């Protein structure tokens, strides 16, 4: 494989598309599939054949608006005609959709998208919903693997690292560590057998960004890993995906097979001396395995528990060798940066948070789904303009970001512009990108209890503060939400938050008090109402006479 061959594949793919007047894309990501979008695709194919229209029905990945699934996107490929999107499509709509091609769009199926795409900017998701994730040719047609060839043939590993560093990209898994710096550390570390790992163990409640990227555009992640491996000098790579994502695993497996067949992975990649191979490792669903040292232990066949850092995996990682470990979304940003340059990337975002971020918008919001926005946009724009605000005339109360490690941000901070640092200063964090909207019917103590329950059951049990501290915190929250809490309990809760935050072994333990701390910071009156007045302001919690407490 070389640049010319790549060009040939791209033109052949384009020629193939030119044969059709219309392309009808059907989302076959997990969300829409659960609404039987496979049936929709089948009936659309049949209807297209029956009509005799020149129409290509394509399986694609996620189109973003999961709330309106199954989604269908009509692309008139080579004309200036606008794209048409349909939502809640049923297989019985197929004939009507095919008949309408070239005519007026069907108003009945319009998913009310106004504002949804305005304000979004797709980099990571640029191909999602537009290409068949299992077809390498379609990825190549959309500039796929160009960046790899460019890196391998025109750039030294040092130049690649310099480009990534200059782009200002920071880790998208939550911590926000500068990606270029991490690559540089691995590149400079001594080790005979360096390794590149993609962390796809997405476990935050309400988060599905990584799943969607892997399902919709697997080659983009593979290309990012290849460029990373070239930059740091690694020969083997692992994609660690949780087994609960069978579709992502299936598409990745297919993509890896295809990439290997075409010479993008294996030995002598793209006619250079660069060798690299990728294996998939399935996680058994332990949240803690998303923590990098636990993930590495899991790949090694050990019990998935974190170990203290330093040494960081960049110095001593998998099998004791220097290991680069980045999140799915981080790798998905690599190819565009190499293709379009660091300056293009760093022109998006804020001073210290560059580029875009994918969020999984869920909860009490009109338009649930996947959104990709430039850093620096406000939370209000995401929740109200893109998400359409809170449904059923209810009042917005808070938005939870950062999963169980994050916090709840109230109304008065909605104009906060999204960046790693701003979210931390507001008592939350970027996290991997879950964004859960809550309205006045949510009790914030109950929300804190929910996340603490998650942290307690997902604690690996290795260190004492997290193992027993989360149990004690959960016990107190349980007492408060059953109107059995006392002022003493509240003081103890604050004391435990401090202990667990500062003495736990890994990042998950250290951040597990965050949902409590942030709700205590902004919604302490709700805690006090439960404790002093035995009343839940949101009407969620009910008094339970707790026999065990006297």
């Amino acid at each position, binding site marked *: 494989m070389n640049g010319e061959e790549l060009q040939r594949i791209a033109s052949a793919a384009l020629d193939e598309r030119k044969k059709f007047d219309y392309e009808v894309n059907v989302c076959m990501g997990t969300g829409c599939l659960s609404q039987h979008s496979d049936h929709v695709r089948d009936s659309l194919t049949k209807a297209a054949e029956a009509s005799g229209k020149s129409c290509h029905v394509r399986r694609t990945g996620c189109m973003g608006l999961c709330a309106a699934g199954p989604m269908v996107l009509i692309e008139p490929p080579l004309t200036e005609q606008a794209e048409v999107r349909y939502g809640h499509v049923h297989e019985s709509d197929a004939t009507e959709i095919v008949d309408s091609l070239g005519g007026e769009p069907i108003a009945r199926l319009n998913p009310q998208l106004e504002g949804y795409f305005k304000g979004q900017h797709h980099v990571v998701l640029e191909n999602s919903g537009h290409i068949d994730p299992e077809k390498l040719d379609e990825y190549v047609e959309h500039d796929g693997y160009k960046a790899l060839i460019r890196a391998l043939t025109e750039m030294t590993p040092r130049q690649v690292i310099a480009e990534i560093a200059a782009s200002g990209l920071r880790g998208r898994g939550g911590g926000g560590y500068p990606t270029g710096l991490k690559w540089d550390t691995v590149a400079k570390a001594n080790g005979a057998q360096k390794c590149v790992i993609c962390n796809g163990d997405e476990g935050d409640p309400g988060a599905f960004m990584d799943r969607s990227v892997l399902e919709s555009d697997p080659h983009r992640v593979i290309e990012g890993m290849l460029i990373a491996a070239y930059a740091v000098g690694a020969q083997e790579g692992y994609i660690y995906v949780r087994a609960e994502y069978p579709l992502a695993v299936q598409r990745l497996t297919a993509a890896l097979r295809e990439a290997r067949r075409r010479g993008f992975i294996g030995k002598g990649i793209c006619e250079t001396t660069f060798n690299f191979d990728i294996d998939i490792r399935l996680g058994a669903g*332990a949240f*803690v395995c998303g923590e990098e040292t636990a993930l590495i232990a899991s790949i090694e066949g050990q*019990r998935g528990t974190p*170990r*203290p850092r330093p040494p960081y995996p960049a110095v001593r990682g998998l099998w004791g060798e220097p290991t680069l470990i980045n999140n799915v979304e981080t790798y998905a940003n690599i190819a565009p940066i190499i293709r379009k340059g660091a300056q293009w990337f760093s022109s998006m975002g804020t001073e210290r948070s560059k580029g875009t971020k994918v969020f999984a918008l869920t909860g009490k919001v009109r338009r649930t789904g996947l959104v990709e926005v430039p850093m620096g946009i406000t939370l209000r724009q995401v929740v109200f303009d893109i998400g359409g605000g809170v449904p059923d005339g209810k009042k917005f109360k808070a938005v939870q970001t950062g999963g169980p490690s994050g916090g709840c941000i109230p109304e008065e901070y909605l104009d906060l512009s999204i960046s790693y640092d701003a979210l931390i200063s507001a008592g939350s964090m970027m996290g991997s990108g879950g964004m859960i909207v809550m309205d006045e019917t949510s009790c914030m103590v109950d929300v804190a209890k929910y996340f603490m329950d998650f942290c*307690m*059951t*997902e*604690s*690996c*049990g*290795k*260190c*004492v*503060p*997290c*193992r*027993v*501290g*989360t*149990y*004690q915190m959960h*016990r107190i929250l349980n007492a408060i939400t059953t109107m059995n809490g006392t002022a003493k309990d509240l003081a*103890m809760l604050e*004391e*435990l938050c401090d*202990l667990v935050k*500062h*003495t*736990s*072994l890994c990042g998950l333990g250290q951040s597990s008090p965050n949902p409590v701390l942030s709700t205590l910071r902004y919604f302490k009156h709700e805690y006090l109402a439960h404790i002093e007045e035995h009343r839940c302001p949101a009407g969620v919690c009910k008094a339970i006479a707790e026999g065990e407490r006297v």
Partner: protein
Amino acid sequence: MTQSGDVKTLKIDGRDLSARADETILDIARENGISIPTMCELEGLSSPGACRLCLVEVKGSNKLLPACITRAEEGMEVTTNSERLVNYRRMIVELLFTERNHVCSVCVSNGNCELQALGQQVGLTHVHFPYRFPKEEVDASQDRFIADHNRCILCTRCVRVCDEIEGAHTWDVMGRGIESHVVTDLHDAWGDSASCTSCGKCVQVCPTGALSEKGRSVAEMHKRRQFLPYLTMMREGHE
């Protein structure tokens, strides 16, 4: 990179001390009679850094670091006994007491228990967090030993000694979080374990009454730790 022959100088609690490059803060503190509480750590075994009792403050680091695995660095300034650390340690010991059923007065290890001693060392007169009172198993199926999970603090010394010294790896941890338990083989009864050699090393390293010899009554279980440094020394070929 520094060579292992290098000598570092550092300050612990205001005292100027020297250290070999491969020494941990805990090693140096012990050499110099500075007491840092520990629990999961045991000389001769690997240190998981899990009990968090030996956390110390290091100037310039915003995180607390476990003394048992943090190597000495040139110019390091370590504090081992700030009010904050003392407070955290007391709470961690309290959490250990609440986790299972530690009824010292009727325990085989009463008077010879590291958890009990630790409680006294950190000045614990009572536990202000509520006790869990979980229902735990007692496994007396082994011919010579008893595993009483009421007393287990999950320090994993048994797991490590069995794996690293005996080489049997009979013990391991099962379950997550507060549900974690040490188990023999694949959660078989200890007496049915095919891998256990009945060597008893796990019993001797266990800090509490969780693992004991059969036939011992209250306060009669004395652990014999001497074998561990001896074995390590002989295996490494030192004098």
